[in-house]
């Protein structure tokens, strides 16, 4: 044995022999919290998840990730009222991420590059009938076809799309965009039978293992307006539907629209485009109580649409409408004042909402909901086993996005039902609240706005009003995402650990905690910008 003098008899040892991890009483855990945008999306999109790819310019992967939940991003990016943006945490910092604009960019990119959906590798041999080719029917068809079921859609109309085609005007949703996204779904092998109204659901279900009712709400609500000679009274849904026909409806020079919802706005804007010099919306209450969205009202006003608050229509005769002024009572309800006024009008269009046409289920007892429409359980099934329903036809918020979400949820439940199982909704992650973020690390980045067509040019025709983002602005906008609750590999945890106890696993693979050395100080969790690390007590 070699002889060493005292005090250097030991080799230099590394402190790595000292496992300071034993001091720990809490450990950091990488969690994937639910970002508020995802929580708010009625179609259940993993927004943060697809933005993650978009941030890197990996648009194809972003599209694939997005369409796991929603097959129509180019449509959604145009017509969705984006509750995700209302919920977006970045709104508390500067302004919400333009999720909807990026979604549209991805949808348009997919159409431009002709991206298709992967077909299922095997077929189940099960047959599902879908009644209605609106968003809820198309969404269900997509999700069922991807699971290998044979899907047939029957629609009473001459073209698929439901209210996306026969309600929402072209200047908001160009039809080539709608057609491209429907074709991509049908391309999965979905059979479409048009001009085929279903009158008796039980009979129609013969030969199918399950059915989904996606019939929407097609019947315009009528208010009784006493009308005399020469009164021209139309309903908004019919007017908008006829826009898809060969001949444009004749509305005249002065058009009055009765109602305060999005349909009222759309029909007034359509009237302007058809040459009406005056398009006036009459509404019972005040603007802040109008169900129509602010941005739509603004766009309409820009185009010369006029609004009259606190008024009800009493009578129409000979190109004249009588309205009565209303007053809000302390409960906020409009009450008549007795003051009358006369307006000139060539036609009156009623936009008072729609009811569900329940004719096809009249022979099946117990399917109708007290709240109107078709009654479904939390799994979207009606009282008739194997018959599911969703979209505008069931009591819920009536939007394309909700309809898409219903289609997806119904498909998951139908799929389980066809296999004799019950679909279990996976447990939701805890929400990534704004308070969980360490916003110090985010720099200001102004929201990228989508250009709009000049108001003067809009009323000339039906060209799309809102323009898309270009590649640069879309990338910038995607990168404004804070990645709430989900690691985006900023290396903060790796950097701030005083004990080098975080191991970097390489691009895309995130990090791992080295529990031999982690003392549990919690700096990584405190300095994680997006709140993706939880400190959890050690079991002692």
């Amino acid at each position, binding site marked *: 044995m070699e002889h060493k003098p005292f005090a250097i008899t030991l080799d230099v040892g590394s402190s790595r022999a000292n496992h300071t991890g034993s001091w720990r009483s809490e450990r950091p855990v990488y969690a994937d919290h639910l970002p508020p945008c995802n929580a708010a999306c009625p179609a259940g999109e993993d927004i943060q998840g697809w933005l993650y790819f978009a941030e890197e310019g990996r648009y194809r992967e972003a599209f694939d990730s997005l369409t796991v939940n929603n097959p129509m991003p180019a449509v959604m990016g145009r017509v969705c009222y984006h509750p995700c943006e209302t919920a977006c945490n970045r709104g508390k910092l500067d302004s919400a991420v333009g999720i909807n604009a990026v979604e549209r960019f991805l949808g348009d990119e997919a159409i431009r590059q002709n991206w298709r959906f992967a077909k299922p590798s095997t077929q189940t041999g099960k047959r599902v009938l879908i009644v209605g080719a609106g968003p809820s029917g198309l969404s269900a068809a997509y999700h069922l076809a991807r699971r290998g079921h044979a899907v047939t859609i029957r629609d009473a109309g001459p073209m698929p799309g439901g209210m996306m085609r026969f309600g929402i005007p072209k200047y908001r949703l160009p039809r080539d965009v709608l057609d491209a996204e429907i074709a991509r779904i049908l391309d999965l092998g979905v059979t479409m039978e048009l001009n085929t109204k279903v009158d008796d659901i039980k009979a129609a279900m013969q030969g199918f293992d399950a059915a989904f009712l996606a019939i929407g709400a097609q019947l315009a609500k009528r208010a009784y307006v006493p009308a005399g000679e020469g009164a021209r009274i139309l309903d908004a849904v019919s007017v908008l539907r006829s826009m898809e026909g060969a001949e444009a409806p004749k509305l005249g020079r002065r058009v009055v629209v009765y109602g305060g919802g999005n349909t009222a706005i759309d029909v007034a804007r359509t009237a302007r485009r058809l040459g009406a010099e005056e398009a006036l919306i009459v509404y019972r209450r005040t603007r802040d109580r109008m169900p129509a969205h602010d941005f739509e009202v603004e766009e309409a006003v820009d185009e010369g649409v006029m609004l009259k608050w606190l008024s009800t229509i009493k009578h129409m005769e000979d190109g004249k409408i009588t309205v009565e002024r209303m007053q809000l009572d302390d409960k906020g309800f409009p009450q008549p004042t007795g003051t009358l006024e006369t307006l000139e009008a060539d036609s009156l269009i009623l936009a008072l909402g729609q009811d569900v046409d329940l004719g096809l289920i009249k022979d099946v007892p117990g399917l109708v909901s007290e709240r109107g429409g078709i009654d479904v359980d939390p799994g979207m099934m009606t009282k008739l086993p194997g018959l599911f329903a969703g979209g505008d036809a069931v009591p819920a918020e009536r939007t394309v996005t909700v309809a898409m979400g219903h289609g997806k949820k119904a498909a998951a439940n139908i799929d389980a039902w066809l296999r004799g199982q019950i679909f279990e909704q996976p447990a939701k992650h805890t929400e990534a609240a704004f308070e969980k973020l360490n916003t110090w690390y*985010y720099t200001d980045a102004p929201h990228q706005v989508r250009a709009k067509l000049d108001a003067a040019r809009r009323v000339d025709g039906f060209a799309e009003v809102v323009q898309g983002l270009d590649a640069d602005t879309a990338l910038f906008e995607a990168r404004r995402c804070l990645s709430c609750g989900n690691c985006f590999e900023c290396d903060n945890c790796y950097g701030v650990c005083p004990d080098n106890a975080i191991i970097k696993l390489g691009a895309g693979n995130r990090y791992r905690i080295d529990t031999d050395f982690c003392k549990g100080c919690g700096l990584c969790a405190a300095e994680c910008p997006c709140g993706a690390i939880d400190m959890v007590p050690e079991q002692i």
Partner: protein
Amino acid sequence: MGYTPVKFYQTGTHTIGNRLLPADARTVQSDDDRANALSCGHRACQGCGEALGARYAVDAAMRAVGGDLVAANATGCLEVFSTPYPETSWQIPWIHSLFGNAPAIATGLAAAMKAKGKATRVIAQGGDGGTTDIGFGCLSGMFERNDDVLYICYDNEAYMNTGVQRSSATPPAARTATTPALGAAPGNVFGQGKDVPRIALAHEIPYVATATVANLRDLEAKVTHAMSLHGARYIHVLVPCPLGWGTASHDTIKIARLAVETGLFPVFEGGNGDVTGVLKIRAKRPVEEYLKPQKRFAHLFKDATGAATIARLQAIADRNIARYGLIDPAAEV
């Protein structure tokens, strides 16, 4: 030599890395090949700012000189927690000095390298006690001779290793073992102490800077720049001490950030006698926000009598802001 912020990504340049940034726009600390000059297994307390600051600084110096570096280290927590015989956490050649002579040891190291014709660069490091009190004579001499050493002071504002005694870097009103929160003027007295970065500047040495563990990019840029120069250089890094300050271990960086954002700890750089750049305050905070989470200032919040003292501390912060021009309304930071 501040860094140039890239204002583009979701987190700008405030994060340590970011997969969206090109490799050269990431920090040394984000690199999985960083030197880890101070390795794990050291016995620093949970959340120790000094352990963090030392790795930040020495890794940056290692990168700047291609790994050819030797360090002298004064007695203090940094030395004690990293080298209990026979273990060491240091993954660089490292020499322990006495409590008060690290600058002199480093001067000797630099001379020896020169004599041997080696390009090896030298740093010295110590706590605030070792630097501003007992080692101050050696440090001033090293400055005055312009010896080729970068001296890094890790300022945790007291003698932590021996149980939190006051140093000449302890702020007024802070409670330490030797300045108890008792009597009419509890805590450390006002009007004492030394501002060593300014004293260093007065030596007309080529480079002087302050930094904190809250802004890694600024710290790394300063160390990197310092290593591109020769002669005596001084960097003073604020490193909160959870034990001595009575803060939560996870708040170390937040507290350092508040020290900067209140103006209590001005972050600047300069050389040859002049201040040449400051790190602007991004969002000014009142001093209470900095003081309140720290038990060493708890007596200021016990009753109404603390308000006057807090106002005096606020005046110090405001004076720093005015003196260094820490707030620039036009600057986008």
